[in-house]
């Protein structure tokens, strides 16, 4: 039976290095684009943007 829901535990956090968050984004983009995956992509982008600025908004 086809799996349709992923319970995702990100390997990175908002404080991870930008390159690690980018790597995670690449992994997410390789998955089927379900609602849950898209939520994690949006979140990872937000983390990445801030991590690149050293925590500044």
């Amino acid at each position: 039976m086809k799996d349709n829901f992923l319970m995702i535990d990100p390997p990175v956090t908002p404080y991870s290095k930008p390159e690690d968050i980018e790597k995670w984004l690449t992994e997410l983009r390789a998955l089927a684009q379900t609602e849950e995956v898209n939520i994690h992509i949006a979140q990872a982008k937000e983390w990445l943007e801030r991590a690149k600025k050293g925590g500044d908004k």
Partner: protein
Amino acid sequence: MTSKLYTLAHNPRTVTRSTIKRASNQARANMNRLDRAALGDLEQIYRNAAANIKNTIEGFAGIDGNLRLNNLQDIQAQVNTLLGQISNTREALLNNNLEQAAVLGTQPFTGAVNGSTLVRVADDAVKFTQSFMSKDGLQLSDRIWRLDNHAREAVGGAIQNAVVQGHSASQAANELLNRGEPVTAALRNKINNANASTVGRSASRALLTGQGSPRHNAMRVFRTEINRAHGEAYMASGAEDEDFGGWRYLLSPRHPEPDICNMHARVNKYGLGAGVYPSRQRTPWPAHPNTLSYVEIVFKDEITADDKAEKINRIDWLKQQPLNIQRGVLGAPQKVAALRKGLLAENEIETPWRILKKRFEKKGIFTADLKLVNPVSTAVTHTDEAVKYVVDNGLSTGNEHLVAFDQATGKELIKKTSHAVNYVSFTLEEVSLIRRGDRSIALIHNHPSSTSLSYADLKVGAHPGSAIITAAGHDGAIFSARVSSNFGTMANVEQNINRAVTDTIWPQINSGALTREQASAIHSHVQNVVMHRSRYMDYEATFNNGIVGKTLNDLGDDIMANIYTEAETLFNEAL
């Protein structure tokens, strides 16, 4: 839970109530600091006194360095004077801290309650604490008298024993020498017991060392009574608020082992929510001396229809708990067996087994039969087995594994891996299973990172059929949450909690208070603590010296208290 949020958002007193909640958090953090400072000052008083006592005793040393029996009374008198000085300094310190604690208890209600009322409430709370008579019939003054008496007995006894033993040994040695016989090594050692330095050290140890020492007992009295003054002032102030709905019993994150506090903090006895009580008289706080727990005001419109519907008596609640909680609350295993056989009444939960045993025997109950034949409950067996399974497999494959079982029947429902490090996938059939409201499913999975439950985990745990979601770290840590069924569908919570914690932690990283690695280790845990404190779920963490626990220890209570409070404030403001 959704209705709670929307009600808060449109109520004109929302700002005041939100201010009270934030100030209550701050007051608890301030109380923790006051507690530490007071105990530190008290420790210093006792250490100074111990040093003075040691010096005084050494001043009585004879040429041979030993103390003489004929000096014993003078030594005792001088030592008692020094112990009396402890008493005076300590009393001033206690009174000062009682006043500060009571004022901290009233501060959250500044602006919401008349100022002169708060001044009176703080004053009354100190007087209440000073005159409060506990179950053992003792007031604070009695406990202080016992502290002083115990100190005189412990220190005086240590001095007297050493001097008398040394004197007797000296007499015996003289008799031996007069008879021309040698003095044995054992006898020489006993003579040395009266050595002034040795006696000084013994007296110091008697005052300071170990549980049950005068210093330890004094610290226990301080923590108990300072916290009492704070809690009484807080509750007397909050009861004046027009929107007062009840008192929530808050289990301290530092609470070491399950005990009766776990029940007080979790049972929904009055239909007001977990651990919420309708009045001061019905609030079982403090449950025991030396408590680390607090209470928090609950406003009327925080109490939901679900809270009212989920009212449960304490016996039924206890029956639903795993063995470690049942043992922690009830104590004796015979009481746990009685609970499981339906013999324990609600008013017998706190009755000691020795009394209950006689009561049961009068009723014709054969108490020898009250044994935990299988000491591990079904639920614990399955959870432990499941944790072992997912961690063992996770360590061997590096991937996430998941087990789900029905808590009511123990039947295993799901056991799987998606062969991925960062996720487990569910089929449609599995999703529909955990969506069924008639199920009570425990979901257990491993986290190779050994960090706490992710937000995605919580969303799975929020399905109607999910009773509890657990993440087991590869380093021994275990994180569990019981999540409200509306949680997963609530708009903005995920974004708000993430931003609240991130906005709190980034400045701390940039100020050098913690590293990025430390921040990453605690990020999910902080999110979960804040959501637990904000009543979105019941969250529990067992660290077992894992990375999260180690990081929290390294950062220390002060930094973590600031992080929790700041993140909670930002989270509640965002809502």
